[in-house]
């Protein structure tokens, strides 16, 4: 696995400039897989089947984790227009049988790339449209449309918590997040090559634990006012949203 660093970026840009011409002459596209991986505290996320430790003493079982991704794009080393892989997608883990990896395969032009970016949430021009404007099987018809003011729910984290350590997971936690103002573009810089011979696996990793907690500062799930964030009630949600948006990682294998 290699983590991409900011430093590599300008160098790659220079070298790739001339090599890229060759690639674009040969042209062609290669089926490339992007894996959306879900984790809890750096381990594969499991829906329901694992009781996770939470730093404030509780245990929880995740029942749902989902988020919208807008404008998923690769950034070509040669500069120029980004390569759009998807306008909008919904990444969802809702059943134990879903596993912790959601894979999508895109046809990507061969060439050198220096990064990947996407918008977390539903981009404003789509967020302005109503579900009936789309096909019934489009991802914006996955009934995440809350109401005319709040629009689509960008992300949901839901769990049942055992706060008293009595073996019953009887406190519901439901965090439904999103608004135009919260829409966040997440950019990863770093180099990789897509060619007919070398085809890296791109992994976008989201960690539910990191959206809620850290070693030093954890969201207080025992506070009844912090167990339910819905609709336009986003003041507390902003904190989780900022952490959620800040914890994404790109891993290239």
């Amino acid at each position: 696995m290699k983590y991409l660093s900011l430093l590599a970026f300008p160098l790659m840009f220079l070298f790739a400039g001339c090599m890229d011409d060759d690639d674009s002459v040969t042209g062609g596209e290669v089926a490339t897989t992007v894996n959306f991986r879900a984790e809890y505290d750096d381990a594969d996320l499991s829906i329901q089947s694992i009781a996770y430790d939470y730093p404030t003493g509780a245990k929880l079982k995740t029942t749902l984790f989902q988020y919208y991704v807008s404008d998923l794009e690769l950034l070509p080393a040669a500069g120029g227009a980004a390569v759009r892989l998807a306008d909008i997608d919904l990444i969802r883990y809702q059943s134990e049988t879903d596993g912790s990896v959601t894979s999508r395969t895109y046809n990507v032009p061969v060439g050198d790339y220096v990064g990947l970016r996407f918008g977390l949430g539903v981009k404003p021009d789509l967020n302005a449209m109503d579900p009936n404007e789309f096909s019934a099987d489009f991802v914006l018809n996955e009934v995440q449309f809350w109401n005319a003011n709040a629009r689509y729910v960008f992300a949901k984290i839901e769990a049942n918590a055992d706060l008293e350590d009595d073996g019953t997971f009887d406190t519901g936690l439901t965090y439904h997040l999103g608004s135009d103002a919260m829409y966040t573009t997440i950019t990863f810089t770093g180099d990789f090559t897509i060619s007919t011979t070398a085809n890296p696996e791109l992994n976008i990793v989201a960690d539910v634990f990191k959206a809620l907690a850290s070693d030093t500062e954890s969201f207080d799930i025992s506070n009844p006012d912090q167990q339910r964030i819905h609709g336009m009630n986003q003041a507390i949600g902003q904190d989780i949203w900022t952490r959620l948006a800040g914890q994404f990682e790109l891993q290239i294998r």
Partner: protein
Amino acid sequence: MNIPEPEAFAKIIYPPDNPTTEEGLALGRALFFDPLLSADSTVSCSTCHLPELAFTDRQPISVGINGRLGRRNAPGLTNVGYLHQTLFWDGRADNLETQALHPVADPNEMGGSWQLMISKLRRHPVYWPQFERAFGLKELSELNPDYVGKALAQYQRSLISSDSKYDRVQRGEATFTEEEALGNAIFFDLADEPNAGKYAEIPTGECAHCHIPPHFTNQLFSNNGLDEANSLDDFKDPGRGPISGSKYDNGKFRVPSLRNVALTGPYMHDGRFNSLKEVVDHYDAGGKYAENKDPNIIPLGLSPDQHRALVAFLQTLTDTSFVSQGVRESESQGVR
């Protein structure tokens, strides 16, 4: 043929190999109301899906051929063509074409065998020519169960309802009474809105996370807390679990549409609640414990007025013109 659809709904997805045609629709409608499809010609689809009850049957658990008790409550078929994800309480059918093959051969429903049914239809003086015209069949041997499924699907896709009071309020053609408006505010959590005004202090019902408009279902599976289960193996009817293959899905059922819900009682997959009042009692109490109970099911703390208001809101989902259209269509099907 082009069946008009309401502006407010994302369009029905017609399968490319079964577009609705006038002949196919008429055939499907005739088959739906015809007991010929059962082993002893006593039970039709409409025995359990009565148009006057928004295509339900007033029974907690459906009763089929020879009075045999089925397993679950018959769901309504209002706007069923819009449910493009899965069908049945446990989602075991993928589309209306294949769904229709289940009841005919189910020993507790129509008790027939497809082989027998097909030979009846091939010999039938009215149906065979209708199949010929609807699907361009040339030889008797081409008639197979798939065409019966296709015709029934075409009819069921025509069961479109968008003229309830709720719909008319959305279109600005009607207004809720004060009580209905309060129920609407509870159903849709208006207390969460920044400018909630007079609704700022009312409970949030949390209903629309699952029963989301326009069809009042998210088509997903959840445990809404009907049965206490200290172990996930304890559910009497495991619902989704055996279909998905995960015990964590035991006790989950597909969220039902609430369109015409005032007509579709008794309620839930086993018809355990006789009235909408009992349904609201259930949600108000926050459901019973199971570790996979959906976390959106929480005690609501409704006052008696708020309780009544929520029921009044649910009653605005009744579309009487849809119901009378279904009744007219059933009456126009002569005996064949």
